[in-house]
């Protein structure tokens, strides 16, 4: 629209208004430099430092830190926690988004607020609440002890804490997306005789796939990187209940800095991969949207 407007105005006006709606070149340069300096100091330098410190004792020390049995165990436990938390929250996210966006019911806002809560709660509190339910002095503690089950200071507690902190990711991504898409396409499919499951698979899923993947990637990054909540419920049993971030902490507190940064560099690499995947998905989503807009415009014309 603005393009049309400026091409209609006289050339002289364009020059005046262009100068009036942007800044002088020196100011632009200064603002860009300031912004990049801020991002450099706060983001780039710490990221570079992780890799620099990781290799400070050479390749061999780096590889040794990564292949040590405790490190391997931490990798495995991290994969288990994320491998359980992510699918659980995907199923929940889809179910929650489906019920919240395709139907009207009372108490919607209460459910949405509860879904948001894990984002607002401190990770330490996320750990604390499970200690209060499952810990030896918690609600279910005596019963669990009687049946020789342990959740706190064991793997199930770590999984639960991870599920809690990543709880909103997928749902939060899908709700606005599905809200925007409405129900008309699903209704059309259903009246044409598709079953509920077919409608979901053939109509809903293709239109939310990028948003869903986006949510999964962010959920996974947080699940693998969670520190505070997992730290509270893990008990720090080396080689048993240590995830990768906890392993980093132990090494760091033992003054094994190079090893700590070597393990940290794996997590930093995961973060970089997450950012690349995220940008790629944003690009895909944008392109799909533009195509849909084009198609809609063409239909309107014909």
């Amino acid at each position, binding site marked *: 629209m603005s393009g049309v407007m400026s091409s209609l105005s006289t050339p002289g006006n364009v020059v005046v208004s262009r100068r009036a709606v*942007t800044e002088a070149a020196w100011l*632009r340069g200064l603002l860009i430099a300031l912004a990049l300096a801020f991002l450099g100091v706060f983001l780039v330098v710490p990221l570079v430092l992780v890799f620099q410190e990781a290799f400070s004792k050479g390749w061999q020390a780096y590889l040794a830190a990564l292949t040590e049995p405790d490190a391997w165990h931490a990798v495995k436990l991290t994969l288990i926690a994320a491998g359980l938390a992510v699918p659980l929250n995907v199923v929940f996210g889809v179910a929650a988004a489906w019920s919240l966006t395709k139907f009207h019911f009372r108490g919607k806002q209460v459910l949405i607020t509860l879904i948001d809560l894990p984002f607002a709660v*401190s*990770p330490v509190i996320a750990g*604390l609440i499970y200690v209060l339910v499952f810990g030896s*002095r918690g609600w279910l503690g005596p019963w669990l002890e009687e049946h020789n089950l342990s959740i706190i200071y064991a793997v199930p507690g770590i999984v639960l804490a991870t599920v809690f902190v990543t709880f909103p990711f997928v749902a939060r991504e899908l709700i606005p997306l599905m809200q925007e898409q409405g129900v008309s396409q699903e209704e059309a499919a259903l009246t044409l005789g598709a079953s509920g499951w077919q409608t979901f698979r053939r109509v809903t899923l293709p239109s939310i796939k990028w948003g869903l993947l986006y949510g999964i990637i962010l959920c996974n990054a947080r699940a693998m*990187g969670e*520190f*505070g909540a997992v730290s509270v419920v893990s008990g720090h049993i080396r080689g048993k209940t240590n995830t990768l*971030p906890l392993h980093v902490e132990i090494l760091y507190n033992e003054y094994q800095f190079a090893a700590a940064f070597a393990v940290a560099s794996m997590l930093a690499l995961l973060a970089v991969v997450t950012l690349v995947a995220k940008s790629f998905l944003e690009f895909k989503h944008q392109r799909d949207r533009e195509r849909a807009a084009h198609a809609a415009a063409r239909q309107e014309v014909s």
Partner: protein
Amino acid sequence: MSRNRVIPGFGLSLGYATLYTSLIVFIPLAALAASGISLGAETFWAVVSHPQAVASYTLSFGASLVAALINLIFGLLVAWVLVRYTFPGKRIADALVDLPFALPTAVAGIALTALYGRNGWFGQHLESWGFKVAYAPAGIVVALTFIGLPFVVRTVQPVLEGLERELEEAAASLGANRWQTFRRVLLPALVPALLTGFALSFARAVGEYGSVVFISGNMPYRTEITPLLIYSKLEQYDYAGASALGMMMLVFSFVLLLAINGLQYWSLRRRGGG
């Protein structure tokens, strides 16, 4: 109501979502509330008004506030530069803004501590100028700034993209200079998004644990944030004390969450209504 009959799966999806939310979020949080209440008013008050607790609130809120303010100013600057200007490496800079969301907090914590410590790249210079950052409140502010960095950028960016250039052209043609246009036309339109980003960044900072625990040094009364105090109470098996402080934080988070939802609603209405 007819759409409820056409589209299937209402009972199943809502039932599952409610059950799962209750098990993971609602019941455990209720356990916290119950544990806090069971203390009785007097004990509860004794725990939450203990000088060490009060010192931790002051530090947590103070440092979070300073960090959120830094992010407010620089977040606006970064969003502005990313939306309005073109420069080489812009896409990389844009993607990088989300790094604090993707980088595990423990990694951020040790990296910042190494950077601002006595022998660190920044720390050695800062210390020679008499600035102590690591193991001091300033270090906590640095960590919290890192953690909250994406929020203001990501809330302001879409609003800035959606602003119509005609408004600025109109202001300019009416004789406003660039600064006046920014102050009188652009800034008011950005206020709801700025406040939302500020509140999100503040809320995240108040609860943050992983990155702060490394850089703060954790000295009671001096560099001990509230989440850390809760953690150390738990380590001493003082569940009641941990619950009382946890409840204080939970109530605060809840109030902040409501405020943020209100702000977002306001922001959307502003954008929708123009």
